[in-house]
C-alpha cells in the first residue's frame, strides 16, 4: 500500500536523511509521483511540513480538505509554479527540482527540470487561455515549439482533441468569445495535446456557473476512462471524485490525515477531521 504521512522528523529542513532514490511500491513499479519530506513555507506560514506520499502510475487521486491545507500547494509544486523549501519531489523516479548529491540538497539544473516538467500538465481554475491566439493556436503552440511537431501534425492532434471535447466548430474562434465552460474545455484540450503522463486539475470547475460544470466534468470523465493518465485532482465536486478517483486523500494543515478509496472515504470516514469536513461540504 502506498505510504501515508510519517510523523514529523527531527531533522531540520534542507537536509533529507532519507534515501536519495525513489522507493518502490509493493507492485515493484516506480511511482509516478513521490514526495519525500517536502517542506513549503509562505512567509511565517508553514503549509507543508515534511510531507511524504506517493502516487502510482495510472492512479486517480483526489485531494480534499479545507482551504490552506496544502492541496493546491502540492499541485503548484508539481508544476514548478512554487519551489519547495525542503525535501525532494520525484516524477517517475527522476528528481524534479532538487536532488541529493553527496548528502546535500542541491538544485536540479533547468534543462533537466524541463525534461521532467514536460511530462506534467495542468488545467487551472481560471483557464488561462492565451487571448492573443485563437482556440486552435492555443492548442498547437506548445506541441509545435516544445515537442517539435510540425504545424500539420500538431493541427491534426488539436482537431482530434477539440472534437473530443465537443468544440470542433470553435477552432478559429478567439478565446474571449467563448463561455467559461467552453474555455475550460479548450484548456483541457490544450493540456492533453502535450501528451502528459500526469495531469493536474486545480479546482477546474470552481469558477464556472453550476449548469456548466457538468459539461466540463463529463469531458474529464471521458479522459479518465479512455486514457491511463495519472491524475491529481483538487475539487469540491464530490460526486465527480467518487466516479473518477481510486484514492482520496484528506489534507489538513499540510498533512494527510486520512486516506481511502472513495466509497469508504465518503460513506464511512474514520478520522474526526474528515468527518467534520465532509459534513460541512456535503451537508450530511
Amino acid at each position, binding site marked *: 500500500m502506498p505510504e501515508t504521512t510519517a510523523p514529523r522528523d527531527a531533522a531540520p529542513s534542507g537536509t533529507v536523511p532519507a534515501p536519495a532514490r525513489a522507493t518502490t511500491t509493493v507492485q515493484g513499479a516506480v511511482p509516478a509521483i513521490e514526495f519525500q519530506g517536502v517542506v513549503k513555507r509562505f512567509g511565517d506560514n508553514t503549509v507543508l511540513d515534511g510531507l511524504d506520499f506517493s502516487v502510482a502510475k495510472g492512479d486517480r487521486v483526489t485531494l480534499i480538505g479545507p482551504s490552506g491545507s496544502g492541496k493546491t500547494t502540492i499541485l503548484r509544486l508539481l*508544476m*514548478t*509554479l512554487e519551489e519547495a523549501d525542503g525535501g525532494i519531489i520525484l516524477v517517475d523516479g527522476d528528481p524534479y527540482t532538487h536532488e541529493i548529491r553527496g548528502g546535500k540538497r542541491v538544485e536540479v539544473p533547468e534543462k533537466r527540470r*524541463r525534461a521532467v*516538467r*514536460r511530462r*506534467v*500538465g*495542468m488545467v*487551472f481554475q*481560471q483557464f*488561462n*487561455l*492565451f*487571448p*492573443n*491566439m485563437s482556440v486552435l493556436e492555443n492548442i498547437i*503552440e*506548445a506541441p509545435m*515549439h*516544445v515537442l517539435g511537431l510540425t504545424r500539420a501534425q500538431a493541427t491534426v492532434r488539436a482537431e482530434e482533441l477539440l472534437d473530443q471535447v465537443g468544440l470542433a466548430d*470553435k477552432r*478559429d*474562434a*478567439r*478565446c*474571449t*468569445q*467563448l*463561455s*467559461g*465552460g*467552453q474555455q475550460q474545455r479548450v484548456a483541457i484540450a*490544450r*493540456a492533453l495535446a*502535450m501528451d502528459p503522463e500526469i495531469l493536474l486539475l486545480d479546482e477546474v470547475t470552481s469558477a464556472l456557473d453550476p*449548469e*456548466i460544470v457538468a*459539461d466540463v466534468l463529463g469531458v474529464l470523465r471521458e479522459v479518465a476512462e479512455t486514457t491511463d493518465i495519472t491524475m491529481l485532482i483538487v475539487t469540491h465536486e464530490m460526486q465527480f471524485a467518487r466516479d473518477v478517483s481510486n484514492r482520496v486523500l484528506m489534507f489538513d494543515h499540510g498533512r494527510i490525515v486520512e486516506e481511502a478509496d472513495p466509497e469508504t472515504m465518503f460513506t464511512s470516514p474514520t478520522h474526526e477531521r474528515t468527518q467534520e469536513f465532509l459534513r460541512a461540504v456535503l451537508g450530511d
Partner: protein
Amino acid sequence: MSDNLSTLRDALPRLGEGVVVTLQLTLGGAALALVLALLLGLGSRAGSLWVRGPSRFVVEFFRGTSLVVQLFWLFYVLPVFGFRMESLACGILALGLNYGAYGAEVVRGSINAVPQGQWEAATALDLGPVHRLRRVILPQAWALMIPMLTNLLIQLLKGSALATYILLHDVNYFIEQLRRSTQDTFFSYTVGLLVYFALAYVLTLGMNALEVRAKNRLGSGPSLREVLRVAPVPATTRGGAA
C-alpha cells in the same frame, strides 16, 4: 492679415520641408526609443544582476540627465572624442536615448501587469522563457503599453523643437523664417503652434488605431473597421452557449 496669409501661402513649401524634418526626428527618435525601451525594459527584469544592473543604470542615467543637455552634449562634445555626427543623427540619437529610457519603465510596468495566470499557463505547457515572452507575454503587454507610449511620443515630438538650435530646418526653424517675412510674431507663432498641434493630433490618432488593433488581436475589443464603421459588422462567431 491677408498679407500674412499670402506670405504663408508662398512659404508653404518651406513649411512642408520643416514638417518633414520634424517628422524625421520624431519618427526616427521614436523608432530608436522603442527598440531601447524593449531592450532596457526586458533587461531591467532579468534574473542576472549583470544584466539588470547596467540596464537600470542606463535607464536612470538618461532619465536623470536632461534632454537638452544630452542633445547639446552629443552636438558639441562628441566631436571632441572623434565622432563626427550630422545634426539629424544627433537629434535622433538624443531623442531616442532619452525617451527610450522613459519607455523602458513603461515596458517593464506593462510586462508586470500581464496577469499571473498567463505566466503560469505558459510554464504548465513548458514553453521556454524566450518563447513565452515572444508569443504570450509581449503581445498582451503591448496593448497595455500603448497609451503611455503615446504620451511619450507626443513629448518626443515637443522635444524635437530643440533641433533648430543644432542647425536643423524643422517646424520651429520655419516659425522664425515666417516671423522674419511677415514681421508678425503673434501670427507666425500661432501658425507654428497650430502645426505642432496638428502633428500631435495625427500621431495620437495613429497610436489610438494601433491600440484598437492590439486590443482586437486579444479579443478584448472591436476591430478597427468596426470602430470606424467603414465595414458592416459581419454576423459571425460572437458568443455561444456552453
